[in-house]
C-alpha cells in the first residue's frame, strides 16, 4: 500500500513543526512497520537480496535465517567420529531393561526464535555383534537387537516418546572365530549384522532452546556405528 502523508502544506500559511513532524512520523511508521504479508503473497516482488542472509552456526553445523534452520552433523567419514552402542550401558541384554543412552556427539541445541515446524532426519550404518555370550537372563542370541531412537528436548524422551519410532538391527549371526585373528566368522553383510537405516521425525515447537539427538538401547555387546548423520529442517513461516 502506498504512503499517504497526513499533512498537506499550503502556500502562505504558517508552517508548524507539528505538521512537519507528523509527516516524518508517518513516514517512519510506513518504512519500519514491517511488510504486510498480503503484499508479499500478491505481488511476489521480494528477491533473495532483500532478505537478511542466514547465519552459519559452525558448532551445530546449521544455518539460521529468517525462514528457520537448515543443516546438521555427520560422522565426517569412516575414522573421524566413529562411535559405539553397547549392551553394557543398557541392561546387559536383559529383556526387561529399557534404558536408552545418548549416542556420543550426535546431539545439538538450537535457539528457536518463534513457533516452528521441524523435520529431524537421522541415518546411520552399523555393525552389530556377533554377541554369542550365554548369560541366561538375556534375550535369545538370534533375537538380540540394537535400537537407535531420536530424542527431542531431553534424553528420556528417547524411551518415553520415541521408542516406537526407533529403528533396529539384529545381532550378527554365526559367532566368532576362535583362533587368531579373532573376529566375526563372516562379514557383517553375510551374517546379517550390518544395516544402514534412516528415519525422520516431525516436531512442532514454540520459541525456546530445543535439543535434537540420538540415543541407543542395545541387547548386543558391541555395535560399531561406522557412519551416522543428524539434520534438521526448521520452518518459522
Amino acid at each position, binding site marked *: 500500500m502506498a*504512503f499517504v502523508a497526513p499533512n498537506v502544506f499550503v*502556500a502562505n500559511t504558517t508552517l508548524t513543526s507539528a505538521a512537519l513532524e507528523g509527516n516524518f512520523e508517518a513516514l517512519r511508521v510506513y518504512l519500519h512497520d514491517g511488510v504486510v504479508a498480503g503484499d508479499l503473497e500478491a505481488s511476489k516482488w521480494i528477491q533473495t537480496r532483500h532478505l537478511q542472509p542466514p547465519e552459519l552456526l559452525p558448532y551445530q553445523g546449521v544455518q539460521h535465517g529468517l525462514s528457520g534452520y537448515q543443516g546438521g552433523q555427520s560422522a565426517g567419514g569412516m575414522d573421524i567420529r566413529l562411535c559405539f552402542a553397547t549392551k553394557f550401558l543398557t541392561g546387559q541384554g536383559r529383556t526387561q531393561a529399557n534404558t536408552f543412552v545418548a549416542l556420543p556427539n550426535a546431539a545439538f541445541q538450537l535457539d528457536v526464535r518463534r513457533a516452528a515446524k521441524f523435520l529431524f532426519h537421522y541415518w546411520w550404518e552399523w555393525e552389530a555383534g556377533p554377541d554369542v555370550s550365554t548369560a541366561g537372563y538375556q534375550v535369545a542370541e538370534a533375537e538380540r537387537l540394537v535400537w537407535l531412537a531420536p530424542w527431542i528436548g531431553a534424553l528420556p524422551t528417547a524411551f518415553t516418546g520415541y521408542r516406537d519410532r*526407533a529403528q533396529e538391527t539384529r545381532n550378527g549371526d*554365526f559367532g566368532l572365530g576362535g583362533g587368531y585373528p579373532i573376529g566375526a566368522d563372516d562379514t557383517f553383510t553375510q551374517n546379517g549384522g550390518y544395516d544402514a537405516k534412516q528415519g525422520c521425525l516431525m516436531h512442532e515447537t514454540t520459541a525456546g532452546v530445543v535439543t535434537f539427538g540420538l540415543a541407543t538401547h542395545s541387547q548386543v555387546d558391541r555395535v560399531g556405528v561406522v557412519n551416522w548423520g543428524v539434520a534438521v529442517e526448521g520452518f518459522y513461516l
Partner: protein
Amino acid sequence: MSRITRAPVQDGDTVTAANLNNRFGDYSQAGALNAFNTRDAAIDLPHFTPARFMAPEMATGTIGRPDFKHTAFNSDTAVAGAQPPFLVRDAAGVATPLALGTGWTLDADSLLRVYWDLSVRPVYTGARPWQGTISDWDIGAGAVVNVATNVTCWAFWLQWDVTSVALANFVNVPGQGDFNSADPSATKLGNPLSTCGATTSVAAFNETASQPDNGDMPGRLEVKVGWQGISGDWHRQGSPVASVVVYGLRVVFTGMLHSWNDANQDWLVRDDVLNAKGACSLDHNAGGLNAMLMRVK
C-alpha cells in the same frame, strides 16, 4: 515507484509548501514499497506475520502395533495369486492411517512430503522353502550348491485417500501399483518398474555363498533376516491442472516378490511358486508416518 533522486535541502533554500509536499509525495506514488527501493537484506523474520506460508501443514503419528521389544506383534502370511495389500494394523487388528484433518489441498504451488518407518521381521518355516523357485541360481560349473539370489522380498508402499475425511477410499499413490498387473507374457503378476514409485522392499531371507577356496565357493550361509527397521519417503508436487485434497495416508505391503525381466521390461512380480507353500510370513510392529505440506512457489 521510481528511485527517489530529489536533491537534498541546501543552506539558503526557500521553504515552500510545494517543496515540502513534493518531498513527502515522493513516497506516495503508485507501487508503494517494491523490489526497486527496498534495500538489500532489509527483510528479516520480525517483518513476517505469524501466518504460515512455507510449511502450512504438518502431521505425525505412530502406525502399527507399538511394542518395541516385539513381545507381541502382527503377522501376515504370503499367499498365491492376485491379492489386496496387507495393512499395517494395531493390536486390535485395526488399520492405522495418518489422518490429515479436514484435508490438505495439494495444488501446483505445493509439495507433499511423506516419511515413514516400520519395524518388521521376515520369517519362514521349513528348510529353505524358496528351493525350486525362480530365485535360485547356479553358482557355476563345478559348484555343487545353489545359492539364492536374495532378490525375493516383501514390498511396502503408500496409499492415500483423496475422497473424504471418512478415510474409506484408500488408493495407491500416483506412480505406484498393487503388484497385481499381468506381465507382458501374462505369466506372472506384479509391477513394472514404472509403477514402483513409492516402493520399499525388504529381503525375505539372507543366503550367500561362502568358504571361498581358490576361485570356488562351495559353501552356503543361511541367515534369518530378523527384526529390522525399514523406511521410505515420497514426494509429490500438486497437479498444475487440478488440485487434489488429501485426507489420509497409510502404509501397506505384499509379498513374496522377486525381480523379473520380460519383453525387455524390469518387473517385480509375485513369487507364486513360493507363495503357494504358505511358508513365508511377515511379522510387523510399529513405526512412524509423517507428512508435511510445503509451498514451493
